């Protein structure tokens, strides 16, 4: 049996990180914004069937960028975690924090132990309720790094530019239409085309809704909100 070549751990981690970052940079981006009635998720996604944004539990949503099969696996794992936990305790005991920690652990393990790291970033958002509990947004990177974000978050290929743009333009108390327009402008900040409703996948966690807060916004409603209808 030939001996494997020696590669220093430092070099190995660097190579893996670079590989994952390259994979993620190829993909399109997602932005998340808090608005008056909840949390808005806007993804640039030309497919109306393969989702990047989806429902996990009553007040929790998931978004993923990068390799579809990898974040799809993570999404289903998240739904399983949430449903089993909610079934064995109570629905109120399912939290974004526990879920984000599980994602962080899983991605961290994969990054250190597997030959190929996951080329994904995921976001877990939980909307606060009307009586003052805060909304939470967690952003988890390919190596398990976890950050909690306030007011807005961006991930994917051009996340840095988008984040800078949001930093300058975000303000509290926006309505759904205003925050959606801002989100779309943020996504197109690095491109020289304007995004139409056909290029977008949009969903909200709407705290005014009963139990399940997640709601997709269909293209017709989208063009109305963007002011491009008619």
């Amino acid at each position, binding site marked *: 049996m030939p001996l494997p070549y020696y590669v220093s751990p430092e070099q190995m981690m660097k190579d893996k990180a670079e590989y994952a970052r390259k994979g993620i940079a190829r993909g399109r981006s997602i932005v998340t914004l808090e608005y008056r009635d909840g949390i808005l998720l806007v993804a640039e996604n030309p497919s109306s069937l393969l989702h990047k944004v989806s429902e996990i539990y009553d007040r929790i949503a998931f978004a993923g960028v990068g390799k579809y099969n990898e974040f799809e696996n993570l999404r*289903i794992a998240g739904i399983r975690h949430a*449903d089993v936990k909610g*079934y064995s305790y109570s629905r109120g005991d399912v939290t974004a924090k526990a879920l984000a920690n599980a994602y962080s652990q899983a991605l961290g393990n994969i990054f250190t132990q597997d030959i190929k790291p996951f080329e994904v970033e995921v976001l877990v958002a939980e909307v606060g309720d009307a009586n003052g509990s805060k909304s939470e947004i967690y952003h988890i990177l390919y190596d398990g790094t976890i950050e909690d974000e306030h007011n807005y978050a961006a991930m994917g290929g051009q996340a840095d530019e988008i984040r800078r743009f949001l930093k300058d333009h975000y303000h509290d108390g926006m309505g759904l239409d205003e925050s959606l327009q801002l989100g779309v402008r943020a996504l197109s900040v690095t491109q020289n085309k304007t995004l139409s409703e056909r290029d977008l996948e949009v969903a909200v966690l709407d705290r005014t809704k009963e139990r399940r807060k997640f709601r997709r916004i269909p293209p017709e409603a989208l063009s109305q909100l963007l002011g491009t209808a008619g």
Partner: protein
Amino acid sequence: MNEDHRLHPFHDYTNSSFVELLRRQSPHLLPGGTASGGPEVPHGTTVLAMRYRDGVIMAGDRQATAGYQVASRRIEKIFKADDLSGVGIAGAAGPAMEMAKLFQTELEHYEKVEGDNLSLEGKANKLGQMIRMNLQAAMMGLAVVPIFAGFDEKSGVGRLFKYDITGGRYEERDYDAQGSGSKDARDSLKKLWKRDMGRDEAMRTALEALIDAADEDVGTGGPDLVRGIFPTVKTITRSGYGDVADDEIRRMCEAILAERTKTGNGG
């Protein structure tokens, strides 16, 4: 071996089932098993479902009975399964409520994983399988026999299903009732039910049947004017699962009782 592993997603057709997930991961959370119950265990009494013009109506009394005692006066027996279907429970109340909760989670889990709803037929079959899981406990006196009803988007009509303790599934065309007062409720529906009833008439028919069941069956609770407890009524139509407000039910119950007092019928 290796090939098997890579093609795993094709073989794992239970991928979107919550019940199968529990079976794999946490079998102790599954209902069923060998527990035995006597008459002291609370039993739900009468639930019914019937078709009407816009879909289906489900209704149930509010009493749980343990032997000759009232175990609870306020339990709810009609549960929302998802936006377009509901399940009414009769039999041992504990396992039945657990089953309703598991069924709700199953449907929601499927919807979230697949991004699509199960067909009404698929939901009805799944509930049958869950009742079969409970067969061992059912033989020891903890039978659960629900009614399942919903709006079928494909055919655009309301449909209802009844079950036996082995999980046998039978589709009923017009109406059915389940539980200790079910025979009386069915007899009542047999005379009152008509095709294409409007919402109000259908609601009234459902309440008449429940009041008849409470009249004849000691386990079934009638409208309780003293405590202000009235039967539950739910409508399931194209536009979703809807509650009927307590006030409306109260008014209708009072009207039925007043009429019976006046005519001396069923008094």
